[in-house]
């Protein structure tokens, strides 16, 4: 399956700061999904993007799919301690191929 590279691997922010994680592929993707995994928890589906240039928002979270459908980003505005966790991008249909994840920690 197509590989997706996710950066950064770790991000530590002060509460209230913004956070962004990026997902990149060398080939065109048919879709991209984002998941959140809290410490000690399981991945929870956040969203799927399928259209070129698509932008979707969920409260303080903004998801983008690049025009060329080779990259995606997840941006969190004004982080809160409840945002702590590892954010994964993934792509695929019959099977999901996950990025390495970005672990977000927050200083309250």
């Amino acid at each position, binding site marked *: 399956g197509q590989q997706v590279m996710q950066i950064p691997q770790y991000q530590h922010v002060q509460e209230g700061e913004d956070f962004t994680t990026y997902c990149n592929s060398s080939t065109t993707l*048919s*879709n991209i*999904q984002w*998941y959140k*995994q809290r410490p000690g*928890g*399981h*991945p*929870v*589906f956040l969203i*799927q993007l399928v259209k070129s240039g698509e932008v979707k928002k969920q409260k303080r979270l903004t998801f983008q799919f690049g025009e060329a459908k080779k990259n995606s980003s997840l941006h969190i505005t004004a982080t809160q301690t409840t945002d702590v966790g*590892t954010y*994964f991008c*993934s*792509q*695929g*249909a*019959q*099977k*999901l*191929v*996950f990025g*390495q*994840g970005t*672990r977000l920690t927050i200083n309250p």
Partner: protein
Amino acid sequence: DTAVSQTPKYLVTQMGNDKSIKCEQNLGHDTMYWYKQDSKKFLKIMFSYNNKELIINETVPNRFSPKSPDKAHLNLHINSLELGDSAVYFCASSQGGDGLGYTFGSGTRLTVV
């Protein structure tokens, strides 16, 4: 009601033993999966079943044998456990196989000593 439930949550066992992990979903999904998450948090698919039929087997050692008695259940049996099998194993399910909205179980943390 838990949508995807796995048992046990924790499993500590000695090398060479055989163990099973059970998974059940009550979402009516057609497809179920086993994923392995290693110590670096990397999530990798192991198996996928659609309506009790194996559709994906990702070069997993023969010691791992999935079994799906019906489309709501997917169990994982592991023979001759090795230290490297220590990981968190997640069961998941989805409807439609279009990548949309996998629901993961809470995971089974397997420790082989």
